[in-house]
């Protein structure tokens, strides 16, 4: 088989650093590869403890971002949001077994004062991640940084292992040419104020008006996903079976990229920002569909989406109940058919991902529940290849296979 390369996100944090609880766990040697069992337990612990603080000055755009990413708002709707009172807590389910416990903290001075004094322990205990938002438009940079330092001090006291992300927000208000310079300057100031987190702190320029939002949040959420190597194994297997140049797993409701695999078949010069662009493009399309069907845009809008172009094929398909997968592979109609069958098979393998490990089954596909009448594919192992003639005959079968066999786990 062809060799494959994976581009890891530059700032992924291992499970152990994110969650102090799991370091003290039974996982004695972090060097050895975790078994799936351990991964799952780690996930469980995280579920109970993970807390994400969203802080920053009032009006800096915290609730705006939260609602666009997790509640399917469109960017122009956020003007209607009022200031957050005290703390708005929400639990966001991500990938089935990861629950993000999001604390959106109102940024008005009175609330901030409380967080730093009487509610200190309550707020800063058991924090997994702190996301601090700076408003680029703010005229009191100095004061903003002083508040940030105070917050950081509290965090050091109660959750020294927390991850810190700083978002320099509303970058759309800065002229395009000077954006990078302005951001670098601000980043330097923030780093200086980050005390013991200075080395680990990661910052991003963001605006709700373009894909930069998805880049930042995609990376933040990715740092929290526990069993990434298991996911990677599955996707690599799938990528091989359909000879894809790229396979990307998206979380279904946020369209944040969870993991991507790029194989050597790709042309070596992909757009570096394609993951966040894809999130942006697909979420926009989802909104169009929701407007048309007059349904909530947080619900599923499509099951399968494919493009067959002269130079490439692209299939986006529901995968587990919480994810969908995007595959890019060489052109041709038989390739599409073949890919759809293999995605269907991989879906079966993968869907146990949301389930307890003990019931997980890798290939061979012993436990596949295929509808009757399609026994032809029951014993197929990846990859399933077709000749172009055969593919035409099988299209109908494949189509009807999709619906009943789509697992709704979780």
């Amino acid at each position, binding site marked *: 088989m062809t060799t494959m390369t994976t581009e890891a996100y530059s700032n992924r944090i291992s499970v152990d650093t994110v969650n102090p609880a799991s370091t003290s766990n039974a996982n004695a040697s972090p060097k050895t590869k975790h078994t799936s069992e351990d991964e799952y337990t780690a996930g469980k612990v995280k579920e109970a403890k993970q807390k994400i603080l969203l802080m920053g000055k009032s009006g800096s755009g915290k609730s705006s971002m939260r609602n666009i990413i997790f509640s399917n708002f469109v960017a122009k709707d956020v003007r209607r949001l009022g200031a957050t009172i005290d703390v708005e807590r929400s639990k966001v389910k991500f990938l089935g077994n990861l629950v993000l416990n999001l604390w959106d903290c109102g940024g008005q001075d009175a609330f901030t004062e409380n967080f730093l004094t009487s509610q200190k322990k309550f707020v800063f205990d058991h924090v997994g991640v702190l996301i601090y938002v700076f408003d680029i438009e703010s005229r009191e940079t100095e004061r903003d940084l002083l508040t940030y330092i105070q917050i950081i001090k509290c965090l050091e006291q109660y959750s020294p292992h927390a991850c810190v992300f700083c978002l320099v927000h509303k970058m759309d208000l800065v002229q395009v040419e000077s954006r990078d310079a302005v951001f670098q300057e601000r980043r330097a100031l923030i780093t200086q104020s980050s005390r013991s987190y200075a080395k680990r702190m990661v910052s991003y320029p963001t605006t709700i008006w373009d894909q930069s939002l998805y880049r930042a949040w995609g990376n933040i959420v990715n740092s929290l996903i526990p069993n990434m190597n298991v996911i990677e194994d599955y996707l690599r297997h799938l990528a091989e079976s359909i000879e894809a140049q790229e396979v990307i797993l998206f979380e279904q409701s946020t369209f944040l990229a969870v993991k991507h695999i790029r194989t050597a078949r790709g042309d070596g010069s992909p757009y570096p920002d394609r993951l966040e662009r894809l999130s942006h493009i697909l979420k926009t399309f989802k909104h*169009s569909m929701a407007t*048309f069907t007059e349904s909530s845009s947080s619900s599923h809008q499509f099951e399968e*989406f494919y493009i067959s172009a002269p130079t490439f094929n692209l299939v986006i398909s529901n995968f587990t109940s919480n994810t969908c997968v995007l595959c890019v592979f060489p052109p041709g109609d038989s390739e599409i058919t073949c890919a759809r069958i293999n995605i269907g098979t991989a879906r079966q393998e993968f869907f146990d991902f949301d389930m307890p490990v003990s019931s997980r089954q890798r290939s061979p596909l012993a436990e596949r529940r295929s509808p009757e009448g399609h026994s032809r594919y029951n014993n197929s192992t990846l990859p399933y290849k077709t000749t172009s003639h055969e593919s035409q005959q099988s299209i109908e079968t494949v189509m009807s296979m999709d619906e009943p066999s789509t697992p709704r786990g979780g």
Partner: protein
Amino acid sequence: MPPTETVFLPTTVSIKKHMLKSFRTFDIWDLPGQINFTSSGYDTEGIFGPAGAIVWVLDAQDNYVESCARLFETVMSLQQTRPNIKFAVFIHKTDSISDDYREDTVRDIQQRITDDLDDAGLTNPPITFHSTSVYDISISEALSKVLQLLIPQLPTFEALINNIAVNCCFHKLYLIDTLTKLFIASDTSPGDTASYSLLCDWFDTLMDLADLYSTEGQSNESHAISERNNGDTSNDRNAVNGSALVKPGATMSTLAPPYITENDAHSFVKGSRGIDLYLREITVQLVLVGWSKQSGFAERKPLIDYNVSLFSKAIKDCLQVIAPDPPETEEAQSSDNS
């Protein structure tokens, strides 16, 4: 250009000519709104002579009475010399009027103009009215209708599209221009803006995705439709009859592969709410897009593909017939901002 940036456009001071290259070329002339071209001293014949249609833009936000009067003058003076020119009145910037008030404004303008022309003895004026705004799809929809006024083969296209729509259970089908997203024909079921808007958004999505992954840049290739100088339009009929559509009941084995050629880009979305989207490239400039809520639509896709191939061939035949545009159809666009 995003609509919010139109604020920075300078006022037009001289006639600007734009070429709209699609399966045929349309010339668009942007006329300054501050000059009255029908008054003596202007080369009326030179400006309006070659025009096929005139788009008259009324600012619905503004006091439109004066503009209506000037439209009236223009229509009357051109009716004498060039009775074939069609007028399309765009009641523009309707986004800035509140919902309840909008319909009243549109009705008022329409009433005013037809009444005036009626009084002047023009009972059936060649005028259509459209309420438009650059902030939504309405401007594209209205411009599409104007283009269609200038396409003599429209009935043929519509017959072909209707045929496909009925046989393949599409609820709405458009033949859209890939560059502008204007539709040059659609099936003749009552049009609705929501369908057009969704399909345009989807088309944008596809273009964005293609932009990320088609390194060869297939959509920017040069693409001259073969020039065959043949003014004979009787072939159009044959094209309709020639497409022997397969009914959905037919079995797969009756279809001879390959029914999709490698080069025709196509796309499909199986929606979660029973809405399926279908797209197929016909030529580099034209794509067929549509949606259906028929259950089992996705399962029947191979048959639909087959039918669309036949449709595609018929359209291509038509285009070859009309490819040379000798009597050049041009379109003058007169803007009026009074």
